[in-house]
């Protein structure tokens, strides 16, 4: 029971990070119907920028953790957003309206480019970050001596995710930008006819996705204390899996998929074997897709003739 609870907490934390990245995938897919393979690498860039900011703040002497964390998050979000915007502008916008596979290949190229760009400029070794936040609560202590703990970092990640999700849902549901995005998602031509600037809306989508990925990158860095140039690929694939699992194009679906994937991974590693956790994640994905091809919360695709 205690062990179960501990894995549940770990899984939720991991799932929150997946969910934040998955939102970027699902939004882009919803609006322009492409798999943005470079999104995982944007997450990695976000992690690197956060690491830089932490070090610089350390040198500058800002060591009060909440303040430092807030500054780091803002910096990471701003600079990573620029990366997200540029990727869209350079690699995807010229391909708007082109055939389906072209942006996908372009995205693959961008992903390879970003990985090697970071590797060249920052080196191939993984970069460690000393623990920024330490400690946690002991939730339960069993007679066998197994303690269930939830660390401050985990609390922060979960709270942060909940807050961001709430803010994000409001943004999509209530603001004019959100309305424009939903309009573009439904029909780009019609949206442009009623005065929505489609290009700008798509750019905004990429910027938002990148900002969320930057938050995820920062969280990941703080939680695991290490980042390298290849990190984005694996996490990105998992997050995409999460987006598909939840039903691609659906925002609550992305979050749900992320959480589920995090839980699957945590429980599988906890009860079976760590080595095969990726197999479990993909296996569940395959099963879900076979029995529910549009994901858990996705709308079934209507075949138009």
């Amino acid at each position, binding site marked *: 029971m205690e062990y179960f609870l501990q894995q549940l907490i770990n899984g939720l934390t991991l799932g929150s990070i997946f969910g934040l990245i998955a939102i970027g995938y699902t939004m882009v897919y919803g609006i322009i119907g492409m798999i943005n393979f470079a999104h995982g690498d944007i997450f990695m860039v976000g992690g690197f920028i956060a690491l830089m900011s932490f070090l610089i703040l350390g040198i500058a002497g800002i060591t009060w953790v909440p303040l430092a964390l807030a500054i780091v998050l803002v910096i990471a979000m701003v600079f990573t957003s620029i990366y997200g915007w540029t990727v869209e502008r350079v*690699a995807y916008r010229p391909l708007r309206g082109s055939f389906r596979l072209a942006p996908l290949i372009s995205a693959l190229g961008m992903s390879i*480019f*970003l990985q090697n760009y970071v590797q060249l400029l920052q080196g191939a070794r993984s970069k460690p970050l000393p623990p920024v936040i330490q400690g946690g609560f002991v939730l339960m202590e069993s007679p066998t001596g197994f303690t269930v703990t939830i660390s401050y970092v985990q609390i922060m990640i979960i709270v942060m995710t909940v807050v961001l999700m709430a803010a994000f849902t409001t943004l999509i549901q209530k603001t004019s930008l959100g309305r424009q995005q939903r309009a573009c998602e439904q029909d780009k031509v019609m949206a442009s006819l009623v005065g929505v600037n489609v290009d700008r809306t798509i750019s905004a989508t990429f910027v938002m996705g990148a900002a969320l990925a930057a938050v995820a990158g920062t969280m990941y860095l703080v939680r695991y204390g290490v980042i390298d140039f290849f990190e984005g690929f694996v996490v990105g694939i998992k997050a995409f899996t999460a987006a598909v699992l939840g039903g691609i194009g659906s925002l609550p679906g992305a979050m749900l998929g992320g959480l589920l994937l995090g839980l699957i991974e945590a429980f599988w590693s906890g009860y079976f074997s760590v080595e095969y956790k990726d197999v479990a994640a993909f296996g569940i994905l395959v099963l879900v897709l076979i029995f529910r091809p549009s994901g858990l919360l996705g709308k079934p695709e209507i075949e138009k003739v």
Partner: protein
Amino acid sequence: MTATTYDSADTKARAFPWRTALIEAGITAFIAFMLAITMVGIHLETVQGGLAIATRFADVVVAIILAFVGRIGIVAMREGFPMVVLIGGVAAAALGLLVPPIDIVAAVLQALGGEAPPATPVLQIMQVAGGVILALRAAWLVWRQRGSRESQDERSRSLGDLSARIQGWTGYIGPVAAAFAVALPFLFYDRATIDLATLVLTYIMLAWGLNIIVGLAGLLDLGYVAFYAVGAYSYALLATEFGWSFWICLPLAGLLAATAGLILGFPVLRLRGDYFAIVTLGFGEIIRVVLLNWYEFTGGPDGISSIPRPSFFGFAEFTRSPDEGVTAFHDMFGLEFSGIHRVIFLYYLILVLALFVNFVSVRVRRLPIGRAWEALREDDVACQSLGINRRNIKLAAFMFSAGFGGVAGSFFATRQGFISPESFQFIESAIILAIVVLGGMGSQAGIVLAAVLMIGMPEVFRELEQYRMLAFGALMVIIMVWRPRGLLAHRDPSVRLHPPEGRRRLWSIGGRKAAEPAVSDGAAQ
């Protein structure tokens, strides 16, 4: 009034719009600054007990200047000054080759009393490459006598005409290319060249194999490397555990991979489009993870080493001093022993295998099943309504594709002599897929061109080893942006009910879009 403005805008002699250019260039420079200040400007150095920060602000300055000048070049090209850009681009590239840009900044900094920064060659490469790309683009515009904006459509149409013509020539180019490939080991009798050619041919074979499922059947497979791995491990295990000969294992590996394709394909073929893509990607990863962790069976991360090399069709071995009762290749033909014999033999082996794949896919395209694939690619639903069994047809494409991947895998295993899960990462699938798409989906000749470009070119610039993958990624983006349907895109059905008379435009691509011009052409006649 409006007419005069229009006319004056169209005349050649008009002022360069400095205002627009400067604003656009300023914005670009700002973006470049925001991008560069973090990743380029700050370097995380691993030192004893953690990380230290070093700054490289001179590089940031260079990057900003390059972005600024480059954007002005783009604006100039758009506004009808391609000649200036051509000269400027060539000059920038030449300058970049002669003097690294960072040296100039360093000199300025030193003159101002600062410290000289350490040089990073990335920017130099960027300057040269950027200059060359701008110059090429400008040269194209000068050649076309057109300074105005050229729409994507027009561009792809003119290039499409060209590629349709090239496709028309394939009948002649194909044999010439094959003859060149046959003669290659004797033209360039050195190991490095033949090795490179072997590598390129391996990718051509893989891409031709993948083309069946992606180019013909129109299913996006992101996990092709799984079958490559199955083929490689089949041969490696059969040869090392049971001592089976390569010549038995080669078809067997193909069959095993095709079986794997059947087993994996069965559940996923119901899925459509991107779901199919992500599930195949998942299978690719699953197979790699299993290979990595099933230590007793596959050797885990250590892989399988000392995989036997192929014999000369079982008659002779490529060794200096063969075992008792075995003929050596050089003795058999009365040659001096040389290590290159095996290299050449492997080269011919992959050449034959690749040409076999090509032959099969070209012929199968004309069979009912091949036509069904093409029909399926164009319209899934229409196909079903015509009574085509979608699942079986897709499965067949999957199995063909997987089988060829498996054969290529066993060739890979015997050539390397060592395999490990390292060789079967997602990036391989991505590269193979990139070759298929960049070449122009469904185009056999385009694949050869793309493979030579993507695999051959980076290998030639081996000294820039570090930048190989960077250039690879950039090349993928650039080719896609320039020509979204691939280099030799051309998607005509292999068989037509009413073959076009004479040279009709062959560039029309895609399902419904292709049908319209064809109909209107017919009506005009």
